[in-house]
């Protein structure tokens, strides 16, 4: 098949339509997506999405890797919010192994996951603004993503592909600088977010470009498997954090914002409100941490949690556990488990089948970007080309998660 030709041509007997290849490396698509569009003037008649340009066979690789080596693979799914993927994977394995993690770990995880959600939403919302012509907001709010990355750096040493946490907890405790940076972020970010909102929320140009564009009904959204902010913008109040609370989310007080019409403006508003709610969650988690014993950052699971290096060098038992974990002599139970977390884009699910070995027999990622994006070509039909571009930005499709 020639990818530069439309797949369906029987709708154009007189050859009046223009074929446009939007992508795979178009600057407006923010990622490696190809859409072969048939245009009638500026209006899209039909579109076909071609994906898979950065497919890396993670599910196949995962079948050959022990559990702790799969975490770096999950980084590279939605690389705008890697910590959520990492935590989702750790929780899946913990569910498989029936590991109960201490409350303090839950709270630390919530801090990291909500920071990741904020950084994910910063990217999406500023890019909607960027694509409607407002470069200022993009540059202005993006510095706070940098501050979030600095917090990751303190916690785990990495910035983008974080590989944060371990099965059972974290590889090390949060240090003083990390907490100081989180507190600084909590103080500074609300001011910037407020300014960001005052630049866009009532902006005439922004509203004209986004309100009423690409509106989606609840029925369509559910039928196409939408989750996350996209589904909530249509008015369905489904959030995995509330529906099936994990990591002690049920102890927290937060709201699930919903939209009404499912258009781009509503998606933008829902994401903005979620950032406020994430800030609330982080504040509550920081408060709750004060009531927990300091220094607890992992569960007591020597079979799966690597002992500290100094222990390995000086202590027989730790050396044995280290050897057993690294050389793969500890088997996980034979079972299958599905665990879902609320990722930046929606329900991120891990379906893990273990046949008793140390590597998964089968691991499937339910990737929200992949399932959300299936509607894009269908939605674009009849839309203006420039609207389709912002529509794509507002769906926050991350190529890594799309292609796995």
């Amino acid at each position: 098949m020639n990818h530069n030709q439309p797949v369906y041509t029987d709708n154009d007997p007189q050859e009046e339509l223009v074929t446009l290849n939007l992508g795979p490396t178009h600057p407006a698509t923010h990622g490696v997506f190809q859409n072969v569009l048939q245009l009638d003037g500026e209006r899209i008649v039909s579109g076909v999405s071609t994906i898979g340009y950065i497919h890396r066979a993670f599910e196949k690789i995962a079948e050959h890797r022990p559990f702790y080596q799969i975490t770096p693979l999950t980084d590279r799914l939605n690389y705008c919010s890697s910590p959520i993927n990492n935590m989702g994977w750790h929780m899946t394995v913990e569910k498989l192994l029936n590991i109960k993690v201490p409350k303090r770990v839950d709270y630390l995880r919530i801090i990291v996951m909500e920071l990741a959600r904020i950084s994910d939403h910063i990217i999406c919302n500023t890019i909607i603004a960027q694509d409607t012509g407002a470069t200022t907001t993009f540059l202005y709010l993006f510095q706070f993503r940098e501050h979030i990355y600095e917090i990751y750096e303190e916690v785990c040493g990495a910035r983008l592909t974080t590989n944060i946490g371990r099965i059972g907890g974290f590889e090390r405790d949060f240090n003083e600088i990390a907490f100081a940076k989180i507190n600084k972020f909590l103080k500074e970010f609300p001011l910037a977010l407020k300014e960001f909102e005052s630049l866009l929320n009532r902006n005439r140009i922004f509203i004209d470009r986004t309100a009423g564009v690409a509106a989606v009904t609840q029925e369509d959204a559910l039928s196409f498997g939408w989750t996350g902010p996209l589904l909530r913008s249509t008015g369905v109040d489904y959030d995995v954090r509330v529906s099936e609370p994990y990591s002690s989310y049920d102890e927290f007080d937060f709201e699930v914002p919903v939209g009404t019409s499912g258009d781009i403006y509503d998606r933008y508003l829902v994401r903005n409100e979620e950032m406020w709610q994430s800030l609330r969650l982080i504040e509550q988690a920081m408060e709750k941490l004060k009531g927990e014993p300091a220094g607890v950052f992992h569960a007591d699971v020597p079979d799966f949690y690597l002992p500290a290096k100094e222990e390995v060098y000086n202590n027989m038992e730790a050396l044995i556990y280290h050897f057993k974990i690294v050389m793969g002599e500890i088997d996980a139970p034979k079972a299958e488990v599905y665990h879902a977390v609320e990722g930046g884009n929606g329900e991120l699910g891990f379906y893990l089948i273990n046949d008793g070995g140390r590597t998964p027999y089968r691991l499937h990622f339910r990737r929200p970007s992949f399932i959300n994006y299936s509607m894009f070509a269908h939605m674009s039909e009849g839309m203006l080309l420039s609207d389709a571009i912002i529509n794509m930005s507002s769906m926050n499709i991350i190529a890594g998660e799309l292609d796995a």
Partner: protein
Amino acid sequence: MADITNNDLIELLGGKFGNKITGVNEPYGLLTFETTKDVIIGVLQFLKESEVANMNFLTDITAVHYPEKNQIAVVYHLHSMVKRIRIRIKVFIHEHTPNIPTATVLWKSANWMERETYDFFGVKFEGHPDLRRILNMDELNVHPMLKQYPLEDPNRVDKKDEYFGR
């Protein structure tokens, strides 16, 4: 928490489909059962439209290959957002005749999920409107997630799994 229990669901399904529902199990609280490919769409439709179950959402479709049994299991995850309960349905089909009816008649999200499953396992979803490869290139003539295909070139001597504790 859930407004309906796994037992209610299994009674409901047993009453409707009888002995077509087999292998009922509850790993980690998630109701799992097997059925056959001639009733799978009926089961999905019943669960979707039943007022009691209200499984309005198709979470996922994927497959698992079991070469020693010569079988491929097609796995459906359904979710009732209203009743807050999930269900997992497996259909075992033979690996040489991997045909199963499509679920696109019920949920549009099944379109890409089934294309992905076809791409990686070669499962042919009968009645699918557009069953093409989705992530792999069209020229690829294998379905790479089947277990007979190794991850890397098996002739390489420097990357044997046992050297890495795998």
